[in-house]
């Protein structure tokens, strides 16, 4: 799977080691590229650390409030690191029509988490509203891998594969 840089990867470098100024420079220090810059920060650190926002604001000549406003507006940007594997479970209408809500309840119960939380074994379970796989629901995104006709077993296999615990096909 190619690296699309969508921030679903496990956290890599510690935030302190990240050269934010260099990332902003690569994006022309252009405020129009703020979202791209935040995607890149999250790709490298697994989240968007609060401590980095002032440096981004300075590089782009924005106020800290403006940067904070963008980070907090978009669901994708994490304020804290996620688990090793991020599972996004679709709870939009098409998946609901084939039992997604009951399935999500069962998955959360099994892992002992609520939506948005990370289980003890490092799997973050989040809601998502449509993955564009509406004819093969219920659907999930496991890191960057789309899984259709989701069952607890198929999810477990995909998580194991994403976690490097064997082929999950």
């Amino acid at each position, binding site marked *: 799977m*190619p690296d699309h840089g969508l921030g679903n990867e496990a956290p890599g470098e510690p935030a302190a080691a990240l050269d934010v100024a260099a990332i902003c420079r690569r994006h022309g220090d252009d405020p129009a590229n703020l979202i791209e810059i935040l995607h890149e920060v999250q790709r490298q650190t697994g989240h968007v650390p609060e401590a980095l926002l002032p440096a981004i604001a300075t590089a782009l000549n924005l106020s800290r409030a403006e940067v904070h406003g963008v980070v907090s*507006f978009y669901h994708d940007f994490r304020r804290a690191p996620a688990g090793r594997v991020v599972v996004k479970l679709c709870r939009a209408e098409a998946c609901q*029509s084939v039992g997604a809500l009951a399935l999500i309840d069962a998955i959360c119960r099994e892992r002992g988490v609520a939506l948005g939380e990370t289980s003890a074994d490092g799997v973050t379970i989040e809601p998502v*509203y449509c993955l*564009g796989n509406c004819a093969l629901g219920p659907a999930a995104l496991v890191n960057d891998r789309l899984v259709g006709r989701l069952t607890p077993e198929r999810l477990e296999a995909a998580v194991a594969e994403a976690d490097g615990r064997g082929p999950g096909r």
Partner: protein
Amino acid sequence: MSTTVYVPRDAAALSVGAEAVADAIRAEAAARGADIRLVRNGSRGMFWLEPLVEVVVGGRRLAYGPVAATDVAGLFEAGFLTGGTHALALGPTEEIAYLRHQERLTFARVGVIDPLDLADYEAQGGLAGLRRAAAMAAADIVAVVTESGLRGRGGAGFPAGIKWETVRKAEADRKYVCCNADEGDSGTFADRMLMEGDPFTLLEGMAIAGLASGATRGYVYIRSEYPHAIATLGRAIVLWREAGLLGDDVIGSGRAFDIDIRVGAGAYICGEESSMLESLEGKRGQVRAKPPIPAIAGLFGRPTVVNNVLTLATVPWILANGAEAYKAFGMGRSRGTQPFQLAGNVKRGGLVEKAFGVTIRDLIEGFGGGTASGQPFRAAQLGGPLGAYVDADMLDLAMDYETLAANQAMLGHGGITVFDDTVDMGRMARFAFEFCEIESCGKCTPCRVGAVRGRETVEKILAGIEIERNLAVVEDLCELMVDGSLCAMGGLTPMPVRSAIRLFPEDFHPDSHSDSHRDSGRAAGAAAAE
């Protein structure tokens, strides 16, 4: 001579194991010394048959599906490379009724070609539209699009040619073409399929829009939930630049146009055009008040063509074949074809491109084969989460902009989400408000507060508290949201809510029926809401 085998790389096909099937075919061919050429195409859009494997035998494509990796050895054993019979054999792909009964113009090449093979693209009619446009005056290109009757496929249905003409006539130092690929509506996947299965068509449509409007810069705003589409379209742009189809001199026209991708960050509202423009400028995706319209003051305040993926991807066909040919399809003021998407609880879900005027029943029963569960049909939601629900009595309505509007429904982006008789429409109405609550940009009060109050009030109704009084409150709220919201998010959320209440009143009066599974489902829903 090697045998050509097609295994889709469309995300939906991958979601049910296409990668493992491709690996197994490669391995099995190597083990048997069979000489094959494996092409990774887009999906034909028959998702119940995915992974759908095709083999070229005697110049025809034969289909097998749905193929699991464990079926591959058996397929080789049965001689599928020479068209051998097998339990999964479906015959010539083009003869499959689901495909044979479609009118594929926009989707003519999706699932047929290698999405990133430019020679294949040209051999199948690609670039003919752009070549023609490059030799035309801008006003003449716009005239063809206007004459074709093409309307915006993103949901609003605004005539594309009129929008283009406004941008063409606007004076500015720079103009833009922005493609809205923030396909967030549940029940829709046509944009994703097209970007993964025939990305060059979208680039061609955008380049034509650039030549017609005088824009020199294009952006495709793709949602982050679509990593495969982002990767494929990104590669397609690189290939087009290398081929001189983008850049300072588009296909020898002497005019400049280039395209970049911008990735969204998980906000449904950014599918609204002015929110998308804000997001493209690196800001919070908050709706802008109109006027001014984007065609006058859009991205960075410049005149901007904003069109959906399907609108732009239809333009090359119109330029290549003429406005008259396109206009010959459709009915009334809805000209041409619409890529409909059959989703949810439906036996044969997928992409059905048909001329406007096909009935909902033709789509759900004829193409879709009814519910996947085998339970009776109860409702379908047309046009995504902001679209109306229809019941069994409305299935003979024609799918076109005007007929649906006259029946308090809408076409939207062409998605149809099917529900069987286990659906609780009270819960669906509650969810419509909940979704608006989660995704509202927060700029205007009717949407931001109305969604919360709406959800709370529906919850009271479902709990049996002062039902009639609270139904009146919901109706009041809906009226306010329709009249007072800045954009379609708040303005259309009442559509699913009101249609659910109007068509399925029994689901809002818990005492009036004793359907135990719905009641237990409702208890679970109420628990999840807390």
